[in-house]
């Protein structure tokens, strides 16, 4: 029991709070420095979405707690120290409310980290989409060609195959599929090259092509994954192999169980509960310059037979069904007057979208309460001193 009390003492202590805040500051500083070498995405993963991190100063590796761990412990620390064990009363009301606000802020970070997705949908005028693609994550999609022109899709997330960067395969199975899938030689950034007679490679050559792994780009969006894939028919044991490439525009097609299937490696794709059709993209340039002054997309939102025209511009996103669609960019960058342009809409689904605002309001209320009381106390004490 003493041990439990001791642990609670430590977890609720101000010393721990200060230690954690120092770590957070340190991680922010080191992570910012590290961005120069490894890029934002990698730093976010290593320093801020991890339980621990080893920061290298020259050849020396310094182990540090990851920001995720630090914030989790800080969350417990705030609950124990700032809500549970704090003396309750008028004197501490403001403090408690402030702690609630900080906890809400931490909760917003958790929800953003684990329950939000963001990506983009890119459309030329006249095109429509009911999905958006991740900037960073990959997935394997198994497509079944249905007779009515539709597609049945089974998806394997990146975690199912990303660790299999060598010959040991990741195996994907499903009772609904007449075959199993093996994936190996996953390369987070690669190009696919044809194997010529003068080309030497240690990678497997399939259909005359092989995966040529490339160094990881600092801007993670530029990395294009590739993986070797094989499907084995459960009934016949027939095995077929191919290479899947992130830039591939069409799936690898094979027959299994008397049906036609496709396999593709693609940016993780998210379904929208509505379809967005780009009617018109408008780019207004500064006079005599090709620099855009403003750009906007006139879209039609189609859902359950209804149509709604919406204009999405740079500071006026479309908020609908938990999604926020922002006007992010346009292209091609080398387009001349009259060339068709595409519009890229950033799509974000973040249930905690507004939490930081609420948290700030709660914190502000707490601080106003606390310091109002202090001010009143000070005024009263001054009045008592006055003869």
């Amino acid at each position, binding site marked *: 029991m003493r041990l439990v009390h001791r642990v609670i*003492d*430590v977890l*609720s202590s*101000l*010393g*721990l*709070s*200060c*230690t*954690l805040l120092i770590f957070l500051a340190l991680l922010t500083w080191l992570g910012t420095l590290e961005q120069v070498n490894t890029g934002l995405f990698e730093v976010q993963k290593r320093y801020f979405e991890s*339980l*621990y991190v080893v920061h290298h100063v020259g050849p020396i590796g310094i182990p540090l*707690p990851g920001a995720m761990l630090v914030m989790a*412990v800080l969350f417990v*620390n705030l609950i124990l*120290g700032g809500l549970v*064990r704090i*003396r309750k009363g008028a*004197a*501490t009301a403001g*403090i408690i409310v*402030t*702690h609630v606000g900080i906890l809400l802020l931490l909760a917003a970070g958790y929800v953003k980290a684990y329950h939000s997705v963001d990506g983009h949908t890119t*459309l030329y005028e006249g*095109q429509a*989409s009911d999905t958006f693609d991740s900037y960073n994550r990959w997935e394997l999609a198994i497509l079944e*060609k249905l007779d009515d022109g*539709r*597609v*049945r*899709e089974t998806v394997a997330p990146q975690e199912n195959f990303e660790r*299999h960067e060598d010959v040991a395969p*990741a*195996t*994907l*199975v*499903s009772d609904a599929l007449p075959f199993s899938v093996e994936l190996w030689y996953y390369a987070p950034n690669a190009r696919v*090259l*044809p194997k*010529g*007679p003068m080309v030497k490679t240690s990678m497997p050559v399939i259909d*005359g092509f092989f995966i040529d792994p490339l160094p990881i780009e600092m801007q993670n969006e530029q990395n*294009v994954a590739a993986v070797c894939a094989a499907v084995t028919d459960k009934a016949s044991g027939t095995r077929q192999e191919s*290479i899947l*490439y992130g830039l*591939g*525009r*069409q799936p*690898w*097609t094979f027959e299994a169980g008397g049906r036609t299937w*496709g396999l593709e490696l693609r940016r993780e794709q998210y379904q929208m509960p509505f*379809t967005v059709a780009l009617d018109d993209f408008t780019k*207004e340039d500064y*006079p*005599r310059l090709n620099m855009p002054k403003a750009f906007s997309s006139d879209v039609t939102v189609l859902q359950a037979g209804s149509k709604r025209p919406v204009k999405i511009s740079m500071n006026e996103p479309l908020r609908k069904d938990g999604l926020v669609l922002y006007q992010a960019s346009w292209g091609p*960058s*080398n*387009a001349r*007057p009259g*060339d068709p342009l595409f519009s890229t809409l950033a799509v974000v689904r973040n249930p905690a979208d507004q939490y930081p605002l609420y948290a700030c309001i709660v914190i502000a209320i707490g601080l106003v309460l606390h310091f109002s009381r202090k001010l009143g106390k000070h005024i009263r004490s001054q009045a008592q001193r006055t003869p």
Partner: protein
Amino acid sequence: MGAATQQPPRTLVGSGHPNSLDSDDMKTAHEALSGPISPIAPSRSRRRPARSPVASLATNLLAILALGGALPGCGGSDSGVSRLESSRAYEPVGRRIRWNAPAAERFGISARDFSGGSPGGSPGGSPGGSRGGSIGGSPAGASGMPDDDTGVTALHWAAPAGWKERPAAMFREANFYVAGDERAECYLTTLGGDAGGLEANINRWRTQLSLPPLGPAEIAALPTLPWLGGSGVLVDFHGQWKGMSGDQAESDYRLVGLALVQPDRSRFLKMVGPADVIGREVAAFRGLAASFHEGSGHAHDAGDDAASPPPSMPPQELPPDHPTIGLGAQGNGAQQGNASLTWRAPAGWTLGPEKAMREVTYFAGADNAVECYVTLLAGNGGGLLANINRWCGQMGAPTLSEADLAPLQRVPMAGAEGVIVRLARGPAATAPAGQDLLLGALCLLPDRALFVKLTGPAEAVLAQRDALIEFSRSLQVVR
């Protein structure tokens, strides 16, 4: 451990909790670290022995690190087998899935014989003869769907006279020795997606020529040509050739290239070699570029001229004795153009080099003393009067008012009414010496502004006045 360890344990009063930065009670974080503080209110506190702040910090650090080290082990083992559970059926929106697409199409590159075989046309090539070629396997993307049952969009071209066509090689779908000179090469490469982007590819070319990279603004200002249904960016670099591996050192090399970077597929036509060889073959390069076109059902055998370039961009040849002027060619009265405009260059006008912000440049008169160029701007380009007065400023001429525009001569331009202005050089001119007279034609279109500016010695400019009007009348905007 100094005075801090000698102090008696202190407790927080007021807020009752160490996390509160209760200034009133002066138990700040600094104080907390400088002496042990009981973490709970006095009424419920259990005193404990004083500990140094360093020891406290170390304890916290070790606890956090231990927790961080322990938690990753809780994730379970990775057996390598994953079971997929859910699936969904849907009708693809905005996407046409093509089953049985060939590997080359899926990878965005040509799978055509990379083992030293020939393209669709015959391998080898006979110097001196105009030949054609074609390949299949180009990826079908948003801008180029397959046009035959195999789903393969074929690419055709007409080899320039005197060039030696070589077998296709890796990343070289059309492959030539320029003018039969084995030091000079020209080849076409197709890659999937944007191939890393325009800037990266152009700067890669510059690196091969030992040139510093260009910035985004400089890249954006590069001239463009209509090419394979898009707007290809034209580059012309001169430097020391390092080669693609950086292991060569050939001075006085020139690279002329055309890059068409699109989201779904990118193509690059690159001609590189000794500057003197390349300088003679720029027009042939341009003709080759113009001859590339997609389509199927028409083969290009040796001597077959069916792969004629689009009418908007005929192959252009410099007279043998003509000095090289950029991508020069003389006006021949035929309709010419680019992605934005078409025009007929008056006889005697010589095509000048590509320049930023100009659709086209011509030279005219004796010694090419008169320069004429066309600019097409988005919107109203600032308006007619503002642009005329900008020219007035350059020529040191008095500025005009709206009322002064009324009596100016009009000329039909691009389906609109253009205004002809004549500005003589004044003492405050900022225009380069030799530009004594400016003749300009301007017009506003619904969404663009079109400017034709002709400058040079006064007499020479006046001699080109009718040609300017004729040229302005011929301008048509490509919609």
